[in-house]
């Protein structure tokens, strides 16, 4: 996988559900080093979790020889986190889930991962292609923007 030497921390995970927790713990610890407040650390954990799960399930399609890479950097009170998989990115973006339609069975039960990522990040780019596959590039500010 492409190695960017300016990243402060890089974590490579086996492609197995559950290991996203390790990336979450790592990200939380990273944000603590930079004095991020609790609510933003929780937001960061959730976006890292959702992006890692998507990388495992959709990007790497569950292949157990594939890897997920999470990399973290912090510049001027903004943490940037990139989650990479070995796939080719999101083919079709589902609309934001509408819970009333879902409950009534008019809409499939999908799209919560991307929805949470979009809601909790301050900036996000999907489908960034790297030498080895797809990457989602997310930023989160120390202070929640209102």
């Amino acid at each position, binding site marked *: 996988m492409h190695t960017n030497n300016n990243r402060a921390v890089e974590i490579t995970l086996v492609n197995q559900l559950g290991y996203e*927790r390790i990336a979450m713990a790592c990200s939380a610890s990273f944000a603590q080093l930079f004095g991020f407040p609790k609510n933003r650390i*929780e937001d960061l954990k959730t976006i890292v979790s*959702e992006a890692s799960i998507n990388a495992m399930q959709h990007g790497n399609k569950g292949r157990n020889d594939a890897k997920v890479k999470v990399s973290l950097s912090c510049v001027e009170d903004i943490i940037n986190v990139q989650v990479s998989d070995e796939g080719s990115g999101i083919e079709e973006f589902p609309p934001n889930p509408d819970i009333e339609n879902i409950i009534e069975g008019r809409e499939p*039960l999908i799209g*919560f991962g991307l929805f*949470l990522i979009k809601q909790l990040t301050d900036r996000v780019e999907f489908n960034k292609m790297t030498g080895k596959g797809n990457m989602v590039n997310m930023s989160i500010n120390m202070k929640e923007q209102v």
Partner: protein
Amino acid sequence: MQNKNEITLEKHGAVMLLDIEGDITAFSEPFLNEAYKNANDDDAKRILLKVGDDCYINSGGIAVLIQILAQTKRNNQNIGIAGLSEHFKKIFNMVGITKFASIHNTVEDGLEALSAG
């Protein structure tokens, strides 16, 4: 891997409390469905889900919960959730879960509200 839940059922008057230990993820599906089935076998009309305030909830777990909410709606059951951290209260609100389940700070609050409702 901590991919299981222990769910204890406790009857509090008219309310059935489902006390969920462990994280709420896609792996919770069989455990939550089983507990919900048991609550139905007891003919529960008011259900309170209790989660740990330090539990990990991801979108897979949210999907499992929404499936339960769809059923409680169809079955005319009243459902509440207690114990969520501030973060997951925010998220449950974002996702719209709060339109189909009431959110309570504590089990006591939840039991009281559901008993009255």
